């Protein structure tokens, strides 16, 4: 790390400390908790974060963001196959919600490079097209037929298919038929499939290869999220080409969601009273959910936490380039406000209590925090 970079990093850590102090101050002035001890637990946790995070040049941040978040959702590599493989491996039922939200959940996102609008249906059709055949190929005519007359495909479908093929790096083969049955015309059919290294990743769980019959067909697990992972992998490998990945809004969106994940992972778990109605709610599963303090969601608390944290995430993910794209204006406040409402399938409300579903990424990051805390205590 150059001296200049080192200064930026130190400045970011200092701002974060300042932000936490601000949040603690705000917390002390208001109490919206309905669980005894919740506010104190949150203040205690924020104090801990303030003390331990900046230590050893922000080691905790580096481990949580570089090792955990990036490895799960945004691999730091230029190799598409590697990035795709890592994101695909981190898929679970709940983490799929995170992956989806990273791409199309951010309410202000105006980015064009992500799976929005008509690209969604096109992806659904690609899943179906691969499922239909037993050679793990899609054929252009067959694909166009899914939208109407294959001989007169709509312009946007051909364009989007082409874009997706380029983005996913599909490889093509052509079959020339001198006289087709319909009009005895010369026809060129193009077959698309994935390159071998991607097929290797998909094998077993998503793709079943029957060597005896020479068939390759997709399993029930092969769904649109396989493609969504590819979108994300594509964003990850082109992180330096900001225009290609949708501009500043994409960057702000991704950093905001990662900052939210980071904070959620560090929040204290609360013990609720035996008489609390949440324990009888069928939606609450004590083994995989925990109640988190409600006051953490207060705008005043989050605002001062998120601003420096988003910048820290941006710096770790994309260095000075990403940091410079973090919007510092009135829009910023709007972005902060909406972060509170994201990831509602893994950070859900149950009878007025905010509950965190213990998905692997939260557990992994929380473990780092615990380990480091224990380490410091031993020292």
């Amino acid at each position, binding site marked *: 790390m150059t001296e200049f970079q080192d200064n930026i990093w130190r400045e970011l850590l200092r701002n974060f400390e300042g932000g936490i102090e601000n949040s603690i101050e705000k917390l002390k002035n208001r109490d919206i908790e309905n669980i005894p001890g919740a506010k104190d637990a949150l203040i205690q946790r924020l104090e801990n974060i303030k003390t331990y995070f900046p230590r050893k040049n922000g080691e905790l941040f580096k481990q949580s963001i570089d090792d955990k978040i990036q490895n799960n959702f945004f691999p730091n590599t230029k190799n598409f196959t590697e990035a795709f493989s890592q994101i695909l491996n981190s898929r679970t039922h709940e983490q799929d919600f995170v992956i989806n939200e990273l791409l199309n959940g951010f309410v*202000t996102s*105006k980015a064009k490079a992500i799976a929005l609008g008509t690209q969604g249906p096109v992806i*659904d059709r690609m899943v179906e097209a691969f499922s*239909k055949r037993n050679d793990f190929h899609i054929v252009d005519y067959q694909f166009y037929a899914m939208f109407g007359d294959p001989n007169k495909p709509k312009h946007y479908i051909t364009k989007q298919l082409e874009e997706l093929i380029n983005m996913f790096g599909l490889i093509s083969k052509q079959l020339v038929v001198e006289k087709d049955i319909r009009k005895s015309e010369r026809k060129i059919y193009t077959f698309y499939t994935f390159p071998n290294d991607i097929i290797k990743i998909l094998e077993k769980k998503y793709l079943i290869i029957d060597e005896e019959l020479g068939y390759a067909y997709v399993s029930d697990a092969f769904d649109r999220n396989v493609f969504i992972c590819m979108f994300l992998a594509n964003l990850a490998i082109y992180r330096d080409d900001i225009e290609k990945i949708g501009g500043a809004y994409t960057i702000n969106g991704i950093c905001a969601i990662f900052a939210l994940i980071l904070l959620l992972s560090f929040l204290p778990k609360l013990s609720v009273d035996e008489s609390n109605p949440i324990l009888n709610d069928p*939606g609450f599963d004590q083994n995989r959910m925990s109640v988190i303090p409600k006051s953490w969601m207060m*705008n005043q608390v989050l605002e001062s936490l998120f601003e420096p944290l988003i910048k820290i995430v941006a710096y770790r993910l994309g260095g000075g380039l990403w940091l410079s794209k973090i919007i510092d204006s009135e829009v910023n406040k709007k972005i902060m406000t909406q972060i509170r409402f994201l990831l509602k399938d893994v950070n*859900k409300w149950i009878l007025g209590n905010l509950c965190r579903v213990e998905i692997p990424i939260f557990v992994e990051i929380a473990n780092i925090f615990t380990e480091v805390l224990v380490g410091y205590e031993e020292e």
Partner: protein
Amino acid sequence: MSYKKKSTRTTKAGRKREKWTDILPRYLTFISHMRPILRETRRIIADLDADLLLDTEILDNIRAEEEKRNIRKVRALSEFSAMYRTNVYEIIKDFIVKYRDSIPIIDIKDYIIDFLYESVDALNLLRHITNPDESNLENTYLYVLVKFLEDKLFPRGANLSIIYDKLLKASNEFYECQRHILQSHTYYREKVHNPDLFQIPGISPKVYQIINNITSLFNLDPNFGEYPERESAELPMILKSEVFLPYVDSIANAEEESIDALAERIGLRQLNEIFLAPNHDFVEILINHNFLNEIKQQDGTIRLFPQFSNETLVIYYLAFTSQRRGFLSKELINWISMNFAFLIYMGILKWKLSDENIFYNIFKDLQTNEKVLPYLMKLICFPNYLGLDKMKIRDSIQYRKEIFNFIGSTIDNLKELIEEIAIYSEKFDKERKK
């Protein structure tokens, strides 16, 4: 004198096939063509010496002979039958090639016959899913399965409270399915606010986010104001402007302008033009389910504290939609009936076919689905079943392709519901035979 024959029909073009007796035969057409092919194949395999199966050319010749016997005059039907028969024989051949070295051929033959028995049985059931004259309705599969699903996903009831209760009861297991049937994949064709004020559209991703925002704001930082219908009581309310504050560049303008319509669908109303608060009827429901907590203040007023769950408002939307099922948008009707048809079809297959049945894929193939499900969708819309406006079911081939391709993006919770349908169907069948 004109030779042009005058039509005796008084209905508009495109509104011809609306009677039960018009739609049922169309539903049965392709099923009736699939069944004999499978039965005939079963007979041929059963009569064939097991050793002959090892030579796949023999199967090719048999299929070619069978093709010659095709006497159907309707081109679509003969093409479908040829495609279907080819698929059946190809699957049998593949099965033999794959296992001939590891399983004795006599056992392979038995497996094939068993799979064919199961498949014919499934088609038989699909063929007798209901009666041509709708007699003895309560004893038909279609009726009981629609009611079984309706109870969980789209219940009826004398009032909203009853419907809400039923939905909430099923939400523990099937909330994701309940949410799914409101989230039509063709949402981009709809407007939040339709000129026809009564029409209810599905929930678009943006509307879903707005509902989440509202839920969070009620839980986090509600204001309390006078309860118009109840003296000495305070109602929780949130600022409308806060809901839309996060949206940069007015990207939720359409939703903000239609907030009245949107609020009504989630049990809220506008107060003083700046607040959103639960409407009077919804307050009772919320209190009954612990989503509002009545706390007496020092001055004697009762303050209603919100403690919403993620599903509190979404389920109201569904209950409201269910109660006003006569006013749903075209997209939503197509989406709901398609999901019901798909679930029932897949549930029956799950019950009748073993997981390893080699012919499962033929049933799941889109080419088969699009021949069976559109008519099943229409049957499901009749008054005795879901009671939706079946005239809004689209008939264009392109639209069918569009809607059925979304079947590929089914969610895990739907698969769990299909399992439930299979178990329930078996139970019903046993009771029926007693």
